[in-house]
């Protein structure tokens, strides 16, 4: 067991302001013309995506970020992942954080499944020697043993997702940041995904799940944070813990 402090994710008074560039001009020509013609000028507008958001995720806890489209939940996930910097406030994460914001990020279509496993895992900061040790498990989980040495451009979208998911859940993250995705493939494979996540959670993995699907959050999470217009409007726990237990 690793000796991590109990709070694996601490979000403290995080605000994020975007600048919307209306009529955005990203060229030198445009900037020069903009000096003379108003139509070519960029107009800025400040947009508050998150205001003063705070919450804590403890070890082994699964928290659901709920809210409608545009409520700021995906932005918050990107801030926790370190991809976006908050305008004010801070985020402290402890341990290995694996963002599962989009499956198969960094897959190159021309490379084989095997090469993509190493490439993808290294994007999460894994050494090749560590990946080698769990390569067989990844392939077995994805059920792609027969295709692992062919380029992923020949994969069906289901195969692609299975491989990407298999990699993510075999990196044994301390915190999994998921945007709607917690299972892929057909019913049987989805079952396998759920089992894998349940077993990772028993070993202390925390989950931050972004979803607008209340049932999905109830199935996986023991607490939730509801966002609206970038603010926390409700927090709570699910008393009837229905987190996937079998």
């Amino acid at each position, binding site marked *: *067991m*690793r000796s991590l402090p109990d709070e694996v994710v601490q979000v403290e008074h995080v605000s994020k302001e*975007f*600048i919307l560039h209306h009529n955005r001009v*990203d*060229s*030198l*020509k445009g*900037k020069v013309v903009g000096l003379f013609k108003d139509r070519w000028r960029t107009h800025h507008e400040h947009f508050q995506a998150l205001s003063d958001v705070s919450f804590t995720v403890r070890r082994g806890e699964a928290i659901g970020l709920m809210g409608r489209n545009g409520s700021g939940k995906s932005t918050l996930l*990107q801030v*926790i*992942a*370190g*991809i*976006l*910097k908050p305008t004010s406030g*801070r*985020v*402290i*994460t*402890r*341990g*290995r*954080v*694996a*963002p599962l*914001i*989009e499956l198969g*990020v*960094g897959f*190159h279509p*021309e*490379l084989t499944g095997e*090469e993509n496993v*190493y*490439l993808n895992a*290294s*994007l*999460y*900061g*894994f*050494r*090749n020697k*560590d990946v080698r*040790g769990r390569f067989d498990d990844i392939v077995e989980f994805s059920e792609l043993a027969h295709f692992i040495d062919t380029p992923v451009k020949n994969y069906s979208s289901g195969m692609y997702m299975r491989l990407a998911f298999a990699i993510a859940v075999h990196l*044994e993250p301390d915190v999994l940041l998921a945007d709607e995705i917690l299972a892929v493939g057909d019913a049987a494979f989805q079952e396998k995904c759920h089992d894998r996540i349940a077993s990772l959670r028993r*070993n202390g993995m925390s989950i931050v799940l972004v979803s607008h699907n209340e049932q999905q959050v109830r199935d996986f999470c023991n607490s939730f944070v509801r966002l609206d217009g970038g603010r926390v409007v409700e927090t709570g726990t699910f008393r009837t813990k229905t987190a996937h237990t079998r």
Partner: protein
Amino acid sequence: MAKTLEHIPLTGPSVSGLRSLLAYSDMLRNFVRKDIQVRYQGAALGFLWSLINPLVMIGLYVFVFSDVFKSNLPNYPLYLMAGLLHWNLFSQITGQSCDTLLANAGLVKKIYFPRLLVPISSVVFNVVLWLLAIVLLFILYPFLGGKLHPVLMAYPVVLLFFLAFTFGITLILSVLNVLFRDLKHLVDVILLFLFWVTPIVYQYHRIPPHLRQLFAVSPLVDYVLIFRGILYSGQLPSWHILAMAAAWTVASLTIGLFVFNRYADSLVERL
């Protein structure tokens, strides 16, 4: 839990600097390997293609300058290669640098890793392709009229400084290109211009004296003179050329790292 992995905190503002870069060294390796593999996929000659372009270029310049213009320089092919190969290295890296962040936008917006790895991997990729050419130069060196002298030992150090200089430029361009997407076209024009105002195919002293001071402002002139001094004439140029080259490197690297660290994070929003 099975064998626990070495603990690498991936995200958070507290993690930065050299240690986190080292943790990602395998990513760099996989990245460069991917780029090379993808580039030469299905090409029968594979890696050799990276050699064919400079060889043809050298052949043509040798023909034009020794047969058409009747240059009287001894060992003109060596003279040319010493300058041209290093010019190629510079122009390939900087020519590509504009695209690096944009080309990897999908990655940068979805996963956090030290952003510096994007320009680093682009530089390493180009250096690997270029290595074949410089190895060939050293194999042919005695046959081209090159002599073994102690000055050659300075070569690795100068090359390192030259790469650091180029890297600094790369950092600046990769950031600027996100803000001005048409920068690449401007860079291509500047590279063409720089090639001809740098004494690569012709001799420095052929430049009219009143223009020479203007030419000497270019850091590439300094570096080409140094590389040619080492590989062709067997002596280092005057100390103030060396000092100027070093100063350019320090300036380019300092500004480049500052600009990149300052803006790389906020650029994610504009990609």
